[in-house]
């Protein structure tokens, strides 16, 4: 009886040792060297794996970054500047300074501003509706309101406002990964500079139709009149295809354009509320 026990233990022990030795040599032979910095960098990254940086997940980003040995063109939108700075510190490099960005929904066609002209009964997806026809309202450029952007957001930063039927961005949660920009078949969402104290001025319309047609379908459409471009002291506004666009790199947030816009298509957000009448008059005089 004892013999059997002893021999079993010995045989298993010998097998174990043999396997260990074999595995050791095999491991040595097929060793893949991985830069230890890759996993260190990966640990610093936020592990959102959103792909917003253009690489497949955080590991891919870390690999590419360490391999490049230069931080030019590398930026994690989710972590933002603090994370990039700590990564730079770890690698002994200098992080590129980048303005924090945020997704902006460029359509203000709520139910009041843009009345419904028909009812859509197909699959409740913007991509499907956009492939079929113009949409439930007279505007063929604006938001379809079925929330493809909300579906793709991994950070819970987008939500549909049931009152307006438009998506709203939670600026604190938005990481500017760009998923919603890709998902929107109408190209309404844009990544723009978050701005000083989150203050932003943008044209909340993408309607390229001529003024009369645009205004007919939506109260707050950009009619491409060009008053804003004339009012802008910094040359930040360009009119193209009957549509104004404010270049956020040039915009100095003076809000002269907001005052002159006849339809109210230009929106200024997060500015302190000032008694309206006075500023308006001043702004008009300044032109």
């Amino acid at each position, binding site marked *: 009886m004892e013999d059997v026990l002893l021999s079993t233990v010995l045989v298993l022990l010998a097998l174990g040792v043999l396997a260990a030795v074999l595995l050791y040599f095999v491991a040595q032979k097929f060793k893949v060297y991985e830069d230890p910095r890759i996993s260190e960098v990966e640990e610093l990254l936020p592990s959102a794996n959103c792909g917003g940086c253009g690489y497949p997940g955080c590991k891919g980003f870390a690999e590419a970054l360490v391999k490049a040995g230069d931080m030019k063109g590398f930026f994690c939108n989710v972590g933002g500047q603090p994370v990039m700075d700590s990564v730079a510190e770890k690698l002994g490099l200098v992080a590129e300074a980048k303005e924090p960005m945020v997704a902006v929904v460029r359509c203000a066609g709520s139910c009041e501003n843009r009345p419904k*002209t028909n009812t859509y009964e*197909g*699959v409740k997806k913007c991509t*499907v509706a956009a492939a079929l*026809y113009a949409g439930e309202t*007279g505007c063929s450029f604006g938001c379809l309101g079925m929330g493809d952007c909300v579906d793709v957001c991994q950070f819970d930063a987008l939500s549909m406002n049931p009152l307006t039927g438009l998506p709203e961005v939670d600026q604190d949660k938005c990481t500017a990964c760009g998923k919603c920009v890709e998902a929107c078949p109408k190209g309404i969402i844009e990544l723009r500079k978050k701005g000083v104290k989150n203050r932003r001025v943008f044209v909340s319309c993408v309607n390229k139709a001529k003024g009369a*047609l645009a205004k007919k379908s939506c109260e707050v459409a950009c009619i491409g009149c060009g008053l804003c471009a004339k009012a802008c002291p910094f040359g930040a506004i360009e009119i193209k295809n009957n549509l104004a666009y404010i270049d956020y790199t040039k915009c100095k947030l003076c809000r002269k354009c907001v005052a002159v816009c006849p339809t109210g298509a230009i929106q200024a957000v997060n500015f302190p509320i000032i008694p309206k009448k006075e500023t308006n008059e001043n702004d008009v005089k300044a032109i």
Partner: protein
Amino acid sequence: MLKRFKKGGIHPHDNKITRAKAIEVMPLPKVAVISMAQHIGAPASPVVKRGDIVKVGQLIGQAKGFISANIHSSVSGTVKSVGDAVNSMGLLVPSVTITVDGDEWLETIDRSEEIVEKFDLSPKEIVSIVASTGIVGLGGATFPSNVKHSIPEGKTAKALVVNGVECEPYLTADHRLMLEHGREIVVAIKIICHAIGVEKAYIGIENNKLDAIESMTKASADTPIIEVVPLRVQYPQGSEKQLIEATMGAEVPSGALPIQVGAVVQNIGTMYAIYQAVQKHKPLFERVVTVTGKSVSEPKNLLTRVGSPVNDMIEYCGGVPEGTAKVIDGGPMMGRSMANLSGVINKGSSGILMMPETETPANDASSCIRCGKCVQVCPMGLEPYLLNVLADKRNFEECIEHSAMDCIECGSCSFTCPAHIRLLDNIRIAKREVGKILRNRK
């Protein structure tokens, strides 16, 4: 046993309410909005400007590129504006708007009723006439006909297949043309056979149109090259590939064009337009449109000028009946619900169908129960339930493997699905995305 295509297909009720209604001429519109994008391919570029006086049949849009078509004025009057106009889908399309004043045709157009049988033209001349008169496939796809007639090098055409199937329920435009203009269609078949160099032409007609089979057989009695093929009713027999299989017995390979098996397919309406273009020098600016629906007070087949507002036509047929939920551009299977009734008739509009609420219930889709009905009815042998899921998960690479591009968008899968899943809607997205991927690969 009558011929039909082999795989799949469905039997929607044909509801051909207007089959016995002779073609009527629709009164002229007050303002015609003529779109520059009435065909597949690049939109034509307008050659008139605001204030110009135009006559009926005058060229107003020049084809831009190989796959494109000329656009001619359908009315006479003054050009009101050149620019974007909202079409029946609510989208902006480049258009020429003309205020109608009288009805003055170009002198070159032969307006007599007399049938001109003789033609003395070379194949090249015929193709160039078809191109210059802006003829496109009137079955709905609006593919420029001259491109079909220009046989690519290394390929030879064996037969012309004329599509008189009209498998879409409700529509009767082609049916009426076969009854009323059979002889003209036969002349057109002779012309196109000469142009593409074939000695054989089939006219496929489903046997729910016995009078049309009879009429065409009689009209083509003295023309041995024409064979009228009665077909067993099965949707979508009017699809190009299915019709070739039913008439010629040849299967077009996946991803190939009909010319691969030596077939050139043309619709009845297109043939009639070709007759008018070649023998009467009349460009394509009017077509037969079926205005129909079960509750419509006076359903009609109307010979309508391109650019006439849909609203006018509906009014002419007794107005939109109460309880109408959808007004569809085309037939109930492949047509699309219109978003804007002040949109206009295009070359490809074969019908205006008004469907009451009771017939268009918006059932909510439930889960797929794996019954396999969609696989059974798919005439292309695809797996719609699978493509639907793949498209939903945006796995377009795998859609390529499952031949998403072979889908002919006939809608048989959505029609048959007991769970009311809108399979085709998702597959259409897959096709679009797959198309993008394939183009990028090149």
